[in-house]
């Protein structure tokens, strides 16, 4: 956090000054470790084992915040008899389908539910990254459940959880993660001792956590701990994601993602959502409790925002105009399709996949096989000059005179040359004022897409083709201003917020939205950002003049709430759990919820409210159910549906690992997304032979001094000089083992690529003892590329493509490699070196480790089963 989010870290230091204890878990000792009270080195890719150990520690010692757990989580809920755990199945859950490597989630359901309410099979969910839809609401599940509040029922979630994590002992944590038991106990003790009625503990992760084949389950494990300890929805608690790009939260809220529409509405699927009704029902799940009951309203408002007057009840609000998904259309699928010549044109908007995405060589070869490419950026980035300067020029794989891609480089406006909102990591929208006009031809994306749309619509004006109706009917009449004819960002924000069609009055809250076409709203979760016709995101009342919550600085979705699910900061009766941790509570005199923040609950619904039998939607949420976007109003320790790789997190080894999974026969995530394509070969991992060809673990992350793929830092002199070269950090022991010298050169080799770097021999990297073996890890920054003031090989070139099944994010924080002294070979010899490694590691054909390894009985504890 100190490394990648230094200014955010001031609050950690503030907490530390007041006595908080800070633990830092990281494969390498970073600037955060230096300031932490305790540092735990960990083998990359084993976080679930560590956190699972903490879960077991809590349950075994009954250290959970029992009152909170019983009332607010699904600990008491009973699961069907059909459910079978990883304990009984060598690391698989019940319902695994060998044919397509997915789970049928039916056996995971709650007792008494005839079936899970999802209408979608797991494979479609995986292909369409359906997990992302759950960012603003839980997966669909029926609200009425059977519960045993004594938590004694053998099939209640509490007992299932206890059994599932039984083997995550401190000894096992040590064996898997390489973390000594005493350090594990120190962490577990501090975490539990600092949680409960009077205290809260916070879990902070950086989004490298998501870049694992089990990334979603990493975060699930953290959430389980925080729920067990009563740290959710309370001040000083929570699971805090530190996102690495200014508006990456905004980019999922108002997504430019293939599978989502604004407000986490799913992009229609050709088979599942043929009609508007099917589409909204699949979101709302009639009969389900919670705020998603109003999905039709949100959907209709979006369609009205898109197609304006053309969208009417008679034509299903132009739902038919929507394109339909048929499967995975994600960025990695696209790149492989580019290599195969299936894609004509590609827009890159402030993004540099030649450096920033996994398997850089595949990215560059894909771009070299397009008809045209549009790059919009501040600087000449690697993704614009691949045809000229890519490493593949040297190897002969790309030659300018044979590369047909037509490249348009359009200069972009910087953040001070345009106005608009970012949504930051804490869901906070902040408006930026424009300081100056952009230089020369530089323009905002707003300008580019507004005018591109204008030109295209002009071209099609006389078209009679049905396919062009969607463009011609599009509501595309934004006011413009200034010498560059810049569209008004405020007008767009107003449309995002939504307004009453008849009066034009901006909506104050999504509860004002109607499903009859009388209101318009581009992103329902953002409704309120333009309440009263005021740009609430532009509010800048100084922090010193308001409370700690600072509600009048910017605007947070939903409804300007700063802590989600903050009803949980009060006990079931609505009283604060303790004076120290008072935040939102029930004011019996006024009969309303009140507190320092906007209550994340219906304002006047008393704690004693109980829904009538069969109540659905918001009315189905009881007065003591804080998790109002979950189908059952509870925090989920166990996910009866919606998480494709299991109802509970399970430690699987990374797809590329030098170690046999010590916990189960199942080696890696069985449901991970695999791309079989000639370019995407993977290193062998146990139980396969030849994994020792790539004996070392490598991980990549950021340096304080650089930003992501370097396009905004390697081009900036005062930053470039602070970290001027690509380097690799190795422990003294590994340096001795491989003959590496400090500041000398080394190159790392995987089945995809070899990259070179200067060596930093440092005590901050340490060998770990894992399952009786010494495992060496090396670390690289992923900021470097071949353009800019400072250049170097790209670490992301080393990775293959394996994705998390829930959200289709790649595993690019851990892999295996070899490391050798000296510079890498050049030209054809470079390719020969990689081929040589592939030959040594089995055969030359593209290689994919088996999805299921449960019949390979060489794993330790699992043999008892």
């Amino acid at each position, binding site marked *: 956090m*100190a490394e990648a989010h*230094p*200014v955010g*870290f*001031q609050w950690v*230091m503030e907490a530390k000054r007041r006595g908080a204890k800070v633990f830092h878990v990281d494969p390498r*000792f970073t*600037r*955060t*470790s*230096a*300031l*932490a*009270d*305790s*540092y735990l*080195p960990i083998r990359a890719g084993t976080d679930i084992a560590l956190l699972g150990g903490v879960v077991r520690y809590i349950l075994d010692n009954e250290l959970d915040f029992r009152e909170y757990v019983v009332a607010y989580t699904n600990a008491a809920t009973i699961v069907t008899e059909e459910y079978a755990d990883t304990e009984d199945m060598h690391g698989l859950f019940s319902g695994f389908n060998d044919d397509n490597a997915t789970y049928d989630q039916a056996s995971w359901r709650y007792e008494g539910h005839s079936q899970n309410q999802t209408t979608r099979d797991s494979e479609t969910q995986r292909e369409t990254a359906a997990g992302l839809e759950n960012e603003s609401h839980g997966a669909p599940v029926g609200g009425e459940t059977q519960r045993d509040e004594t938590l004694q029922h053998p099939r209640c979630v509490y007992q299932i959880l206890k059994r599932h994590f039984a083997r995550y002992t401190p000894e096992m944590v040590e064996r898997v993660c*390489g973390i*000594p038991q*005493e*350090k594990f106990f*120190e962490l577990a003790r501090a975490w539990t001792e600092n949680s409960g009625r009077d205290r809260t503990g916070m879990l902070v992760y950086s989004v490298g956590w998501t870049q694992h084949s089990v990334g979603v389950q990493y975060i699930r494990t953290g959430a389980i701990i925080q729920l067990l300890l009563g740290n959710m929805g309370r001040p000083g608690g929570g699971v805090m994601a530190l996102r690495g790009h200014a508006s990456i939260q905004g980019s999922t809220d108002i997504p430019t993602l293939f599978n989502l529409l604004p407000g986490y509405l799913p992009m229609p699927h050709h088979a599942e959502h043929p009609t508007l009704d099917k589409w909204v029902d699949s979101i709302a799940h009639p009969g389900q409790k919670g705020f998603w009951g109003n999905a039709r309203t949100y959907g209709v408002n979006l369609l009205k925002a898109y197609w304006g007057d053309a969208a009417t009840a008679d034509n299903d609000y132009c739902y038919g105009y929507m394109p339909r998904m048929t499967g995975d259309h994600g960025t990695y699928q696209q790149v492989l399709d580019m290599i195969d010549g299936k894609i004509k044109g590609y827009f890159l908007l402030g993004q540099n996949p030649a450096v920033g995405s996994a398997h850089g060589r595949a990215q560059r070869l894909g771009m070299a096989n397009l008809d045209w490419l549009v790059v919009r950026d501040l600087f000449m980035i690697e993704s614009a000059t691949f045809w000229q300067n890519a490493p593949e020029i040297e190897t002969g794989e790309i030659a300018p005179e044979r590369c047909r891609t037509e490249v348009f480089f359009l200069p972009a406006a910087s953040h001070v040359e345009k106005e608009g909102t970012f949504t930051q990591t804490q869901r906070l929208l902040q408006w930026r004022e424009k300081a100056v006009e952009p230089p020369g031809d530089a323009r905002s994306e707003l300008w580019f897409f507004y005018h591109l749309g204008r030109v295209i619509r002009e071209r099609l004006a006389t078209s009679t083709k049905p396919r062009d109706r969607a463009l011609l009917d599009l509501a595309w009449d934004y006011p413009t201003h200034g010498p560059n004819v810049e569209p008004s960002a405020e007008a767009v924000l107003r449309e995002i917020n939504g307004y009453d069609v008849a009066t034009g009055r901006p909506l104050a809250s999504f509860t004002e939205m109607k499903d009859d076409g009388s209101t318009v709203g581009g992103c329902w979760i953002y409704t309120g950002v333009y309440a009263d016709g005021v740009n609430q995101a532009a509010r800048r009342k100084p922090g010193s003049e308001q409370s700690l919550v600072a509600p009048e600085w910017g605007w947070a979705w939903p409804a300007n709430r700063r802590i989600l699910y903050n009803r949980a900061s009060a006990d079931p009766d609505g009283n604060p759990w303790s004076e120290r941790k008072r935040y939102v509570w029930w004011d019996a005199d006024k009969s309303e919820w009140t507190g320092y923040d906007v209550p994340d609950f219906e304002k006047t619904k008393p704690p004693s409210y109980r829904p009538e039998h069969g109540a659905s939607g918001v009315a189905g949420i009881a007065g003591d159910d804080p998790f109002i976007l979950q189908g059952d109003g509870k925090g989920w320790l166990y996910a009866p549906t919606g998480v494709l790789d299991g109802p509970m997190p399970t430690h699987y080894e990374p797809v590329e690992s030098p170690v046999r999974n010590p916990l189960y026969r199942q080696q890696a995530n069985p449901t991970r997304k695999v791309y079989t394509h000639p370019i995407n070969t993977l290193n062998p991992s146990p139980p396969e032979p030849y994994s020792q060809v790539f004996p070392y673990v490598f991980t990549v992350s950021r*340096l*304080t*001094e650089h930003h992501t793929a370097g396009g905004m830092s390697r081009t900036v*002199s*005062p*930053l*470039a*000089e*602070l*970290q*001027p*070269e690509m*380097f690799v950090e190795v*422990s*003294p*022991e*590994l*340096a*001795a*083992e491989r*003959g*590496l*010298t*400090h*500041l*000398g050169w080394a190159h790392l080799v995987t089945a995809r690529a070899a990259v070179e770097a*200067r060596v*930093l*021999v*440092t*005590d*901050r990297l*340490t*060998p*770990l*003892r894992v399952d009786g073996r*010494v495992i060496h890890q090396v670390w690289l920054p992923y900021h470097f590329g071949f353009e800019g*003031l400072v250049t170097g090989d790209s670490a992301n070139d080393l990775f293959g493509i394996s994705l998390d099944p829930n959200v289709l994010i790649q595993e690019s924080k851990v892999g295996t490699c070899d490391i050798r002294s000296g510079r890498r070979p050049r030209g054809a010899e470079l390719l020969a070196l990689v081929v040589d490694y592939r030959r040594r590691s089995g055969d030359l054909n593209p290689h994919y480790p088996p999805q299921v390894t449960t019949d390979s009985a060489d794993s330790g504890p699992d043999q008892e089963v």
Partner: protein
Amino acid sequence: MPHTNALYGPLDPAPDAGYENPPPRMGFFTDTSVCIGCKACEVACKEWNGVPESGLDLLGMSYDNTGALTANSWRHVAFVEQPRSAGWATPAFAGDPDGPAISPVTAAAGARTSTDTGTDPGLPTGSPAAAARMSGGPEFLGMPGAQPPGRGSGAEGRTDFRWLMMSDVCKHCTHAACLDVCPTGSLFRTEFGTVVVQEDICNGCGYCISACPYGVIDQRKDDGRAWKCTLCYDRLGAGMTPACAQACPTESIQYGELDELRERAAARVAKLHERGMPEARLYGHDPNDGVGGDGAFFLLLDEPEVYGLPPDPIVTTRDLPAMWKRAGLAAMTMAAATAVAFLGRRQ
């Protein structure tokens, strides 16, 4: 008349420099115990003061690629990787496996950090002994401070590991040798008690550079003039905080009235001692020290020389009266000798 402590001892420098009713003396307190080594100070300083690039060399000194305070780096964050306990923390690498010791080849290469670039940080080429120490091998004498990172020998040495970071800056001494030796009056004392180079005056004589006991002020090669931290004199005049202190995310760099900062620092040290960090100590805070106390002082977690600071600097001008006396004596001797020589026999 000049103050009796004009050259040495406690002194309020602004009135001594001719300011009547000056504002309180302003300064920096840099608390290294909360420094996260982010280098925001280095960048913020460069942005505000238009300081040019200082080179694109990988120095291999942990994460320090700046190397030292120079004419083109007015803040410098030092990084020290140390196999030593930070006091309150659990050993970072306890229980990790041991391995073979680092090879002599690594050790030797580890010492090779950069080529000589004049006054820029670099190998002490002028001093073979120092160069020999840094180049490792049989001459290596085992001086801890000269160790390149990673020289430690495995887990045992690393069990108690800490990573020190410290943002260094001009000390704005009470008795500033650079200022006193400046022959043009380019270096002057501001009403805030700080020491500033006036770029419209400096003619690049270089005297200040040899005079500074901290090795701070430096000549910019292509420009010829001497440059260093101004404590953002222009911002101070506007009632603003210096750029580095304003940027510092963790309040490691604190700006304020020196008297108040000294009190704050004393309290902080006491607190750290209480928390089991006896190694915390102040540096440059004492008006009775060799430079009359620094306007920019530090809380350190190890001896000053570990961070590249002189352990007990004394302003050279303390001895100036004695020097003039010796020079006078020598001059008289010279004159007398000449007289005697000419008054002697003709042949």
